[in-house]
């Protein structure tokens, strides 16, 4: 079940989607983080952000919207509290990195170089940050240049997480590749909105938010498949994975590894069940090595 995600060795292809699993401790009664391919931590910025007002979520058909706004206590707290705990547990760690500016991304990575973490996932795609974030991830030139800068700052596996809210996902993926990324993550949330008709108001304080959950799976699969054909980097696929079969779909479409997000909220055992489901699928189909499934879709 082991896979190699752009230099990051994972004992199985399953990690958590950033922001849905904190740094793993909250799920400790359900999931032993050392059994996961990796734990991807909640987006972290240099000094910590307060995030948006509540309500921050809304339920939507087969999915949900969130506008957490990257609330986080800053990279120092992550390094003092969360990373040591994850290290103690024997987890493989991917740190999701955020910033309001190129410099902030770099500063966060610089700090993290001192910590025992195994890869970075650069979130250039969060729709909930007014500066940086969204705009950054939709322009190929910006993407290439921020990736280049971070590439120069680290030798660790560099995963770039893309937003699906673009006309051409392959243009952005190519830019990340040109910048020197080791892998790309697909997809972050789709920008959406929810209205409470009876109250004539938006359901969330910030009006718009990011859509996740199984409703987005068709869009996510399409983007993974397009990028698998367009670039040669490995892909971390996510967006609506609720069970092992969903994960296999992403792998067949071209993902080398997958992340489980919203499913954790529905079922705290989701990550474990996805791992078991993939193993079960391989057994039923006589697949000895999960790597054989990557991009194995017959079209």
């Amino acid at each position: 079940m082991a896979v190699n995600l752009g230099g990051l060795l994972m004992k199985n292809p399953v990690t958590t989607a950033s922001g849905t699993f904190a740094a793993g401790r909250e799920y400790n009664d359900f999931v032993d983080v050392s059994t996961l391919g990796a734990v991807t931590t909640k987006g972290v910025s240099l000094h910590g952000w307060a995030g948006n007002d509540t309500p921050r979520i809304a339920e939507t058909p087969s999915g949900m919207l969130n506008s957490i706004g990257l609330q986080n206590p800053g990279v120092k707290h992550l390094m003092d509290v969360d990373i040591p705990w994850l290290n103690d547990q024997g987890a493989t760690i991917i740190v999701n990195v955020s910033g309001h500016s190129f410099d902030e991304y770099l500063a966060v990575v610089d700090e993290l170089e001192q910590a025992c973490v195994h890869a970075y996932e650069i979130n250039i795609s969060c729709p909930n940050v007014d500066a940086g974030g969204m705009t950054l991830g939709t322009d190929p030139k910006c993407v290439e240049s921020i990736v280049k800068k971070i590439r120069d700052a680290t030798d660790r596996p560099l995963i770039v997480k893309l937003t699906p809210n673009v006309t051409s996902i392959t243009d952005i993926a190519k830019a990340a590749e040109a910048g020197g990324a080791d892998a790309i993550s697909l997809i972050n949330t789709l920008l959406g909105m929810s209205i409470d008709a009876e109250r004539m108001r938006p359901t969330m304080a910030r009006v718009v938010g990011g859509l996740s959950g199984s409703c987005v799976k068709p869009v996510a699969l399409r983007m993974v498949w397009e990028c698998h054909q367009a670039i040669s980097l490995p892909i971390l696929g996510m967006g609506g994975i609720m069970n092992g079969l969903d994960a296999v779909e992403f792998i067949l479409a071209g993902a080398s590894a997958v992340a489980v997000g919203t499913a954790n909220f529905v079922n705290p055992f989701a990550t474990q069940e996805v791992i078991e489901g993939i193993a079960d699928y391989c057994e039923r189909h006589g697949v000895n090595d999960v790597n054989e499934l990557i991009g194995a879709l017959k079209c």
Partner: protein
Amino acid sequence: MPLINEQARIVENECVGPRLYLMVLESPQIAKTIKPGQFVHVRIPGMPDHILRRPFSVYAANPATNTIDILYQTVGYGTDFMTTLTPDSASLSVVEVLGPVGRCWMPPEHVKRALLVGGGVGAAPLYMLAEQLVKAQVHTDVVLGAQTEQALVCRGRYEVLLSSHEADVVAPLCSTDDGSYGRAGFATSLVAEALESAAQAARPYDYVAVCGPEPLMRAVAELCAGANVYCEVSMERRMACGIGACLSCVVETTDGKLRACVDGPVFDATKVVW
């Protein structure tokens, strides 16, 4: 206490008042460990399109029968759908409950006189606390407010409980918006008077617990602040994970944005930034 996620059989699911239902669940592990003020995060089976769990306080837990009681009000899709679940249905008689979650009510250690204030369905999550206090022989008064007499749904249970202990007031003080029972108007005025007369009688309250609509909680918190009485409130927020991971449910506090699910739902009222 470790968190548990268990398949809970529905033992009972009945209408007990206007838009109010009582669901009794067989949930042995949670029934044993849950504390007053904590809640369970419930996955309701068979809902088309809707994926999130719903948080509900536990109204009563009975380790002897392995059951927990949830008193819920129908306010939207999920709670409406819950009313269709029946103990005898083939597929829709089991819900998944995750719990016990959250910070429980924490009266001061040597509390002497407590006032519990429940607005609407907020009366439910206070009942276990009332039991606990009465058992510990704390002098406990209860104020209940609701829109109408029928909506004062836990009243009977509180009456039985309170009549079993020695106190100035052996029945809950009630108010209804429409005046159909007790004082006409909001519960706040009853609370103000109770605080006042307790103070005058030199037997002041040293603990107030409030659960209900935010304006009620805020008003009571302000009265308590004025009267210098320690007050706790139970905050409601929309929740995704329900266990502290997603930051959906934060409450603005003097210590920053804290999670209602695990840092609350019960907060020291003076810490809440309303």
